[in-house]
């Protein structure tokens, strides 16, 4: 159990903690995996370079779950963080302890949005392609985004403003200028996305809805069953991409190497088997199965087409509304034993976060809920988050 995977002896009023998915040259990068334990990168993430150039100090690295696609970081090779019988997220703990103004994280499968929602923090997962992914440990490249979490929306906005922008070194970086929209007038409350939520989340949604209405924003209930399929398709795409991305770890050029092996094949197999955790292993196998000759068209290709169907469903919603309101998670905390009865929670609890992951749309978590907007509405979503924060004070 570790909150920081590395920490520098630095004090700063512009302290930023990055998560262990971003490469740093002065601290190791492990991605929460025994495979990369102690790995030192030769270059740093573009987001870090931009933060440093703008006067921010990177003071440490927050621990993450193995390759950061679990619930809150519980699959880290350092163990889960448990406080008062509840699962915790390292970045959220750092912010709650006021040890940084913001954390910069790689959002793969909803961990950042979920952690912010559960800890009364604010997080923004930006429009895909607006923040460079150069220098991040790749997991599910078609959907993952460098994101920001903070105690309030204004800091998220400031930090996002620093790290966003075109980067030649990232082939998926969008050309500038980004035409950010502003002004929330109409919000769609996606009723179909509320399945499985508990009473506390339901109250958070009602309270946020009331805040928006009090501030002159029209909120209308909508049902969209297609969006509810997001996590099923995202699970397929994420696992398939992850399977390919982690195939590079073989114990030869860097990373963990098994001590015992009789030949090259055993070196690969023993190194990977020893270093990878249980969730990662079954996800690799699932991804590999999706990409097999038998399943490629039936499963992987189908998921890519469903991604378009979901994107079009959102486009239709955003033809009439500025944002979509929905839960970020089913509950405000997961008990220590939650994973015993929900072993595949990373693949089911992402029901609420997968819509933004699979479409690349921006999402903001605030006040225990989530807002998703059309591409480049990042700042507008943060404006809405500020309304909620003001109401809370």
């Amino acid at each position, binding site marked *: 159990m570790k909150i920081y995977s590395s920490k520098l002896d630095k004090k700063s009023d512009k302290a930023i903690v990055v998560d262990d998915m971003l490469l740093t040259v002065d601290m190791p990068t492990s991605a929460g995996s025994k495979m990369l334990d102690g790995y030192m990168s030769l270059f740093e993430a573009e987001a870090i370079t931009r933060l440093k150039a703008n006067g921010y100090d990177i003071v440490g690295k927050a621990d993450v779950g193995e390759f950061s696609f679990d619930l809150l970081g519980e699959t880290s090779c350092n163990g889960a963080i448990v406080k008062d019988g509840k699962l915790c997220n390292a970045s959220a703990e750092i912010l709650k302890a006021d040890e940084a103004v913001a954390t910069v994280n790689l959002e793969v499968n909803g961990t950042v949005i979920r952690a912010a929602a559960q800890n009364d923090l604010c997080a923004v997962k930006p429009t895909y392609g607006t923040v460079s992914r150069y220098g991040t440990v790749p997991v599910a490249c078609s959907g993952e985004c460098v994101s920001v979490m903070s105690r309030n929306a204004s800091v998220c906005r400031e930090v996002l403003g620093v790290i966003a922008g075109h980067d030649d070194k990232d082939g998926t970086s969008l050309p500038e200028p980004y035409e950010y929209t502003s002004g929330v007038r109409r919000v769609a409350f996606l009723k179909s996305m509320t399945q499985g939520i508990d009473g506390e989340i339901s109250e958070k949604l009602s309270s946020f809805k009331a805040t928006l209405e009090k501030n002159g924003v029209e909120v209308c209930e909508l049902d969209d069953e*297609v969006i509810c399929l997001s996590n099923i398709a995202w699970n397929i795409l994420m696992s398939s991409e992850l399977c390919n991305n982690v195939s590079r770890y073989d114990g*030869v*050029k860097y990373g963990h190497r098994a001590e015992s092996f009789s030949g090259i094949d055993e070196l690969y*197999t023993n190194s990977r*088997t020893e270093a990878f955790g249980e969730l990662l*292993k079954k996800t690799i196998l699932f991804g590999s199965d999706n990409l*097999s000759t038998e399943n490629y068209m039936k499963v992987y290709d189908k998921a890519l087409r469903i991604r378009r*169907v979901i994107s079009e469903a959102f486009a239709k919603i955003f033809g009439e509304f500025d944002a979509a309101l929905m839960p970020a998670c089913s509950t405000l905390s997961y008990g220590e034993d939650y994973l015993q009865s929900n072993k595949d929670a990373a693949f089911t609890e992402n029901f609420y976060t997968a819509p933004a992951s699979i479409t690349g749309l921006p999402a903001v978590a605030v006040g225990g809920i989530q807002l998703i907007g059309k591409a480049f509405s990042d700042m507008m979503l943060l404006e809405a988050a500020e309304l909620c924060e003001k109401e809370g004070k």
Partner: protein
Amino acid sequence: MDKDTFRRLELLNQLKLTETEKADAFAFFGSREKERLALDKIDTSSVERMVHVMPIMTVVREDVAVQKFSREALQQGAPETDEGYWCVPRVVE
């Protein structure tokens, strides 16, 4: 998922699961297969695949050779090296 297919996946991915991990993985595969059936209810025959979420293509950079890192630097994290080479077990018997 039958046992032979599972073993083939293990071999392809250079992994060897314990019996407990296998049982858990089988259950995991079963749950994913069950939920996947919901996707089949949507007719996507006339829908194009969406590989990129944004209208972007991989940028082709100038093809200029640069030596960014030295061999020594690149080998810093290597489990075993010898005179500038990465060491692996004998591959030709």
